[in-house]
């Protein structure tokens, strides 16, 4: 058990080292969320007087950052396959389960760091008041659950589709719609009905809702539901990733 834990740590360490070694990617992946927050947030706030749209989308932008970084971290197994490092991991006396858990935790760690940076910048730029400590803890917990399940989702995806070309498709066909077809950027009650329905079945909406409740107290599903959906997603995704990854070969 001890040894298995240290192997999980090895896989985690590799993810985190790669992340800290590429500062430029760290910065560039913050660019888009910040742009959304400043430009979109600023623009809409001016459009609708009396509605602090920036404060409203901050949780959505946070979810967006976590989503992008997490899925990217999971899907990057495709690159490991392409550049060979996957062989090194599969040849090691570590179980597939160990690799999945290590990668999930590693990817989640990087996503949470990115998220926290956005959060701090967001509070500073938008003037959203910083919520009390208990809420901050809740935000962190939700970020952990959300990012872990999304990394696992990426791993599952990369175990099924193994071509690098798929990578770009994932970005445009899966990750972007998950954000745009949710309540991350627009208030639910102002959406056309079809979009409301889509958002309601999009699990990302529940994490956004939870974050929004904890940050500005304006959620609509209730925190209990938000957390339940997030945890259920985590369990499903970890199981899917473990199963599908155990089936892959070099």
């Amino acid at each position, binding site marked *: 058990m001890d040894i298995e834990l240290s192997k999980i740590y090895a*896989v985690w360490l*590799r993810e985190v080292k790669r992340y800290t070694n590429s500062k430029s990617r760290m910065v560039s992946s913050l660019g888009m969320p910040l742009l959304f927050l400043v430009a979109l947030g600023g623009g809409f706030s001016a459009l609708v007087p009396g509605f602090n749209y920036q404060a409203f989308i901050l949780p959505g932008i946070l979810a967006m950052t976590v989503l992008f970084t997490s899925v990217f971290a999971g899907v990057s197994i495709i690159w490991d*396959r392409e550049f060979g490092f996957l062989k090194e991991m599969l*040849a090691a006396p*570590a179980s597939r389960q160990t690799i999945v858990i290590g990668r999930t935790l590693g990817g989640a760690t990087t996503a949470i760091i990115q998220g926290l940076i956005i959060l701090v910048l967001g509070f500073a730029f938008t003037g959203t008041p910083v919520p009390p400590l208990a809420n901050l803890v809740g935000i962190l917990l939700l970020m952990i659950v959300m990012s872990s399940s999304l990394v696992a989702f990426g791993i599952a995806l990369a175990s099924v589709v193994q071509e690098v070309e798929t990578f770009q498709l994932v970005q445009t066909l899966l990750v972007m719609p998950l954000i745009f077809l949710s309540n991350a950027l627009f208030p639910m009650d102002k959406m056309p009905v079809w979009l409301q329905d889509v958002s309601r079945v999009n699990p990302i909406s529940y994490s956004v809702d939870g974050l929004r409740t904890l940050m500005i107290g304006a959620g609509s599903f209730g925190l209990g539901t938000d957390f339940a959906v997030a945890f259920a997603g985590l369990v499903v995704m970890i199981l899917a990733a473990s199963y599908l990854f155990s089936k892959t070969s070099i």
Partner: protein
Amino acid sequence: MYAMEVSRLAKRFNGFTAVKGISFSVGKGELFGLLGPNGAGKSTTIYMLATLLEPSDGTANVNGFDIRAHPDQVRGSIGIVFQDPTVDTRLSAYDNLDIHGRLYGMDGKTRKQRIDEVLALVELTEWKDKMVKTFSGGMRRRLEIARGLMHTPKILFLDEPTLGLDPQTRRHIWSYISKLKSQGITIILTTHYLEEADYLCDRIAIIDHGEIKVLDTPKNLKGIIGGNIISIESREPQKLADVVTRMGCCRKPRISEMTVSFEAKDGAKLVPKVMEAALKAKIDIESIEVHMPSLEDVFIHYTGTSIREEKAAPSGIMMGRRAHGY
């Protein structure tokens, strides 16, 4: 006791048989070579022995563990240097080795000590903290070898360790391999360089189209031909080959560009006779050479083709689909 026993190991990829039920044993401390052209099934064999691919048939015992029944124990006791690069270029040399050591369950003190040892062996000590993406191809290969040795495996698999490297780097890698051999580690090496197999291996299995054609020491392999090789250069190689065949004194003349070569029991005595016959048939001879059989001649003897010719063949036809790296 053998370090490894392979019995009727086979691999099929949807209908295509890449490895056709091969059997061989490797002694402890032996340096065993699998020599074969592109697509012969060398890497596929290594993947199965390293438990990365499941065999379609047969099995193997590696370090006392069956590859099907105890893949984890097999993995823990072997080291592999893959044909294609597998180091993480976004990590330093140190981190690559350190993470490897952790994955193999080594404790911190042993890891530090081994990192110094293996880096010294492959002369990369000064590059310890540099990012691997700044390394040349030869340095990366050396790092891969260091990493394969990091956890002191009992058996080391080297899949074409000098592929695509310049002669000087190749010499270097040969010297590391010789050094390892003197330390008693068992090594399985695949190559399609004849001189590499000849220089390094205790025993060589010539593998072609998924089958082992012959297996022996380099010396015995060359002895199998039992005589000399005569090579004659002429403007009319086909005609000359016919003349030689009609003489009935030797087997299988082979034409390669302008040269006709054949095996002969006593080459020196045969030369005047061949010259005479050629003269009679009015064939001009540019040069004639008698030499001791090389591994190349042995390879031709058993496979009917030269390993160099196959290497130069257009890709796709003889090599089939390359299956590495994804």
